[in-house]
C-alpha cells in the first residue's frame, strides 16, 4: 500500500464522517464544524489528485467563506424546529433505508466494474490552463453563471428582505 493510498483512505474517511455528522448531529453549531472538516478533507483529496488550484479554491471558498457564512447565518437567525407534516413512520424510514442502500450497492458495483487506464503523464491542474479554458471554450458558461448569481441574489433579497415599516 502506497503512502498516497493511506492518505486517501484517511481523508476519504474524514470527508464521509463529516458529511454524515452534518445530518446526524442535533445542534447547528456542531453541524457547521463537521461541515468544515468535510470540506477540508475534500480539499486534501484534490491535492492528492494533483489539482492544486481547485484544492486552494476549495479551502478559500468552502472552508473559509461558506462555513463562515453559515456561522453568521446561525448567529443572526433564531432556530426553531418546524415541519410540514407528521414525522416519518418506522416503516417509512426502513423503506427509505433499504432504497438508499440498494442504490449505494448498485453504484459501488458499477464503479468496481470500471477498469480505467492509468494516465501516463503526470497531471497538474495549473491556473493558466484553467484560465484559458474558462475564458475560452467555456466562456458562455462563465457568463451564464454571472446571470445565475444575479438571479439568485435578487431572489434571496426579495425573500429575505424585512419590511422597514
Amino acid at each position, binding site marked *: 500500500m502506497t503512502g498516497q493510498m493511506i492518505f486517501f483512505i484517511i481523508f476519504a474517511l474524514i470527508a464521509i464522517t463529516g458529511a454524515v455528522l452534518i445530518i446526524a448531529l442535533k445542534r447547528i453549531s456542531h453541524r457547521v464544524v463537521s461541515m468544515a472538516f468535510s470540506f477540508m478533507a475534500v480539499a486534501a483529496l484534490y491535492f492528492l489528485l494533483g489539482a492544486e488550484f481547485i484544492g486552494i479554491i476549495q479551502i478559500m471558498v468552502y472552508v473559509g467563506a461558506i462555513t463562515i457564512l453559515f456561522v453568521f447565518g446561525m448567529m443572526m437567525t433564531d432556530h426553531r424546529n418546524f415541519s410540514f407534516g407528521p414525522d416519518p413512520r418506522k416503516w417509512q424510514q426502513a423503506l427509505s433505508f433499504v432504497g438508499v442502500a440498494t442504490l449505494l450497492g448498485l453504484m459501488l458495483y458499477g464503479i468496481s466494474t470500471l477498469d480505467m487506464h492509468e494516465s501516463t503523464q503526470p497531471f497538474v491542474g495549473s491556473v493558466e490552463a484553467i484560465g484559458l479554458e474558462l475564458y475560452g471554450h467555456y466562456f458562455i458558461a462563465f457568463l451564464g453563471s454571472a446571470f445565475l448569481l444575479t438571479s439568485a441574489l*435578487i431572489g434571496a433579497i426579495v425573500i429575505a428582505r424585512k419590511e422597514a415599516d
Partner: protein
Amino acid sequence: MTAFDANWSLMTPEIVLAALALLVFTIDFMTGIHGKKPFIGRLSVLSLLVTAVLVVVTNSTSGSIAEVFVVDPFAMVFKLIILIGVAMVILISMNFLDRERNAEVYQGEYYSIMLFAALGAMIMVSSADLITLFIGLEILSISSYVLAGFKKYSRPSTEAAIKYVVLGGTASAFILYGMSFLYGLTGSTSLLEIGQAIPMLFEEYTFVVMMSFLFMLAGFGFKISIVPFHMWAPDVYEGAPTPVTAFLSVVSKLAGFGIILRVFFLGFGGVYQEWAFIIAVIAAITMIAGNFIALTQTNVKRLMAYSGIAQAGYLLVPVATVVGDVGINMIVFYSVAYLMMTLGAFAVITLVTEDTGTSDLSSFAGLYQRAPYLAIAMTVFLVSLAGLPLTAGFIGKAYIFFGAVAGEMLWLAIIMIVTSVISFFYYFGFIKQMFMTDPRPNDKELAVPGSMQTVVTVSLAVTVILGILPGLVLDIFNTFNWMAFF
C-alpha cells in the same frame, strides 16, 4: 495558444434579452420598492417579443460557437416556444399582481426574474455541452424556486418554495452525478464527442453507461415531472402563485423536454435501442398514474398538476417510439399545442380563482352565466387537453399515436388511448361546473381585463386553427433538419 474565435452574432437574441432584463431591473429600482408597475410588465412583454423576432431573424441559419452553443432549427423553435410562453405568463401575471390581495409581491423583481428564467431556458435548449446546459438549467431552476415563493407572507407559497428548492437541488445533484460518469468515461463534456464515443463505451462499460443514463433521467424527469419523480408537482403547483404555476407547468416543462431530447438523442443516440424501452415504461406509468390520480382531485391547481403530469407522459411517447426527425416533429407539434391550451386554461383559472379567492373546483360554478366567452374558451382548451377532434390537442395526440403504432409499440398506443378516455372524466368535471351549475349567490358578472382577453384569444385561435389546419406548421417542421448545426 490562440485566442478563442467565435461567431458571437449567433448569440444575438440571448445578449439582447440579457441586456433588456437588466434594463427592466434597473428601471425597477429607480421607481421605488412597492407599488404597482404595469409599465414594467409591458416592457417585459415587449422585450420578449423583440427577442422572439430576433430569434426568427438571426437563428434561421444554423451554426455553432465552438460546438458549445449551437443554433439549429430545434433550438430556434424551442426558443420561440419559451419566449411566447413567458410573454403570455407575464400577461397573466400583470392581471394577477394588480389585485389588492397580491400587493405584497415585489413587481419589478418578479418580472426581471421571469426574464432571467427565459434567458436560462434559451441557453439551455441551445447548448450542446453539458456544462453550458447545466448552467442554463440552473438559471431556470433557481429563478423558478424564487418565483414559487414570491408571496412570502403566504404559508402555502413559502412551503411550495422550500419543498421545490430542496427537491430541485437533489434532482440537480442527480443530473450532475450522471454527467460526471459521462465525463469520466469520455474525458469530454461535449455532447457530440460523447455521442461518438457512446456505442463503444456501451460495449465495454454497459453498467456504468446505463447508470449515468438513469441518474440523468431521474434528474431531468424531476424537472418535467414524470412518474415516479412527480411527487413535488401537486404541492408546489398548489402553493405557488397561479401565474407561476402556469410558468412551471408550461415553460419549465417544455424547456426540460428540450434538453432531454438534446442530451438523449445527441449524447445517447448511438445506443437508442438500449434505453427506448425504459422511456416507454416510464411514459406508460406516467400516463396511467397522472390520469387516475387527477380523477380524485377537487382543487383546480392540483388537478392541473396531475393533468400536466399526464401530458408529460404523452410527450414522452415519441421519445420512446420514433427516432430522429419525425419524432421531434411530433414532440414539437404537441409542445406548441400544449403551450397554447395550457396557458389559455391557466389564464381562465387565474381570473376565476383570484376573483372568488379559492382554488376549489366549485369556483367555476356557473361560469357560463358570469362570463360566456371565458367559459366557451375554457371548454375548447379542456377539450383540446382531453384530445377531442377539431383541436390542436387532438392532432398532436393522433400524430403521436400513429407514431407509436408505426414504431411497433402497440401496447403503449393503447395505454395512451385508454388514459385519454379516462381524462375526459375530470376535464368534463370542469365543463359541468361551468355550464350546468348555477353561480354562487354573491358572484357577479366577471369582468375580463384586456391582457387576459389577449392571452385567451390568442391561445383559443391557435388551438382551433392548428386543430383544423395542422399543415400550417407541420409543413414547416417537415422541412427542418432539426439537430444539424454544422
